[in-house]
């Protein structure tokens, strides 16, 4: 008989937390260093509710008691998601986007305006939010052309389902450099990233 605490309904996290978190982090570091390059992860964690594999693995890799997390309506309406994050990561779930170090967006159509998240402080720009959002597809939509650190010449980015205002808001976000949010786009078990340093043009 196992005496381990087994709360009902909470799905398992990583089988091997040390090495899986390391692998996911290295893939994220690769993605953050090469904006819009898509990486695809393997994970043993089981995802609760509307959270998909990549978003779950990123949460397990990055979140802990030091990272306030905000969930959008799509994720917040399922108590199982907040329970999962509280149990595995011990992260506080906050009610307002501006308090969050990380935001999880289950439905990118409902993404709040980027300026509602913490942009950081001009003397401490690292205190900005990282927004992780689930998109219907990472390729196949209207393309923007990216330039900036991590991109040798230019690179196309064409995720599907971003709100109409997203790229004008991104121009403001990039223009505020070194302030600004950093973004990770997930789709199932794939993800890519756009740090604030990336310039996107139509």
């Amino acid at each position, binding site marked *: 008989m196992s005496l381990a605490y087994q709360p009902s309904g909470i799905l398992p996290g990583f089988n091997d937390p040390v090495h899986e978190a390391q692998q996911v982090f*290295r893939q*994220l570091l690769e993605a953050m260093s090469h904006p819009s390059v898509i990486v695809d992860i393997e994970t043993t964690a089981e995802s609760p509710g509307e959270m998909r594999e990549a978003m779950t693995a990123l949460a397990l890799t990055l979140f802990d008691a030091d990272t306030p997390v905000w969930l959008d309506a799509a994720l917040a309406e399922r108590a199982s998601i907040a329970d999962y994050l509280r149990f595995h990561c011990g992260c506080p779930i906050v009610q307002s986007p501006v308090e969050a*170090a990380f935001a999880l967006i289950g439905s990118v159509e409902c993404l709040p305006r980027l300026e509602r998240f913490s942009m950081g402080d001009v003397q401490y720009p*690292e205190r900005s939010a*990282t927004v992780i959002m689930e998109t219907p597809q990472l390729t196949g939509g209207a393309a923007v052309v990216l330039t900036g650190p991590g991109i040798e010449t230019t690179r196309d980015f064409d995720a599907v389902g971003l709100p109409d205002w997203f790229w004008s808001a991104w121009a403001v976000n990039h223009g505020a450099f070194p302030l600004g949010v*950093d973004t990770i786009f997930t789709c199932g078990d794939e993800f890519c990233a756009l*740090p604030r340093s990336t310039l996107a043009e139509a």
Partner: protein
Amino acid sequence: MSARKRKTRHDDGETGYNFAYLDEQTKRMIRRCILKAVAVPGYQVPFGSREMPLPYGWGTGGIQVTASIIGRNDMLKVIDQGSDDTTNAVSIRAFFAKTADVATTEETSKASVIQTRHRIPERKLRADQILVYQVPIPEPLRFLEPRETECRKVHAYSEYGVMQVKLYEDIARYGRITTAYAYPVRVDDRYIMDPSPIPKFDNPKMDNSPALQLFGAGREKRIYAIPPYTTVHSLDFEDHPFDVETWDEPCGLCGATDSFLDEIILDDQGGRMFACSDSNFCTARRADGHTGQFAEDPIEESRKGEPAHV
């Protein structure tokens, strides 16, 4: 040292420490700092530097960065002043071989993670490699403005005139910029950054490098980064452009004319030679058949005719 594989005590859960020494909470904190450092190239992100089992000044910052990124499949190379064989490099390599059981190598081309003290390898790095620098003093303005609060404002508002004045004063006094190592750079046209005490010879290698470059300062508790393909400009003036040091002689061992050379004293009669500081680069060239003037044992050569040492 070649790749090696043995069963580790971590796998059996017998040791008192985690994979790669740091606990997972610390690694997560450092990983989050590294991601923000990549997002804001050249900006020094404060982090909660831990006490390591070796003193400050021996690469505790670089070790914490390496410990937070390294995995079981990595191949680690550690260099100190370009050499794989010096105390610091040997100790840190042994540290990770023991605590993370990673394979280690001396060959630059085989490494996936390279931790370095004071040099960038001569061989061009690739996109699948990460270079981790050990940094003693991350703040490029420290000797111009001792107050941390003021330095932070200078970076925040990009008011870097004081650095240009410092370089100008060098020119006014000596006719050239005399900074030879830790030569300040501007990253992506925004932050001025200290590249750690690498010789200015290495500065051009940072510009548009395909490899990710991470910098860790343990005592000063700062992490910063240069993402791949990022502009890194060594500060200069239009009429005094940045240039690197050159040598009159080639490497005494391999004959290279395009590498950074160390001067080595051979005897007390004024005998000396120059040799590549990058030991792996020099060894590989000699293996390819390149030889220099002192390719025969230089110490033995210089000792001929002297009384035997006891």
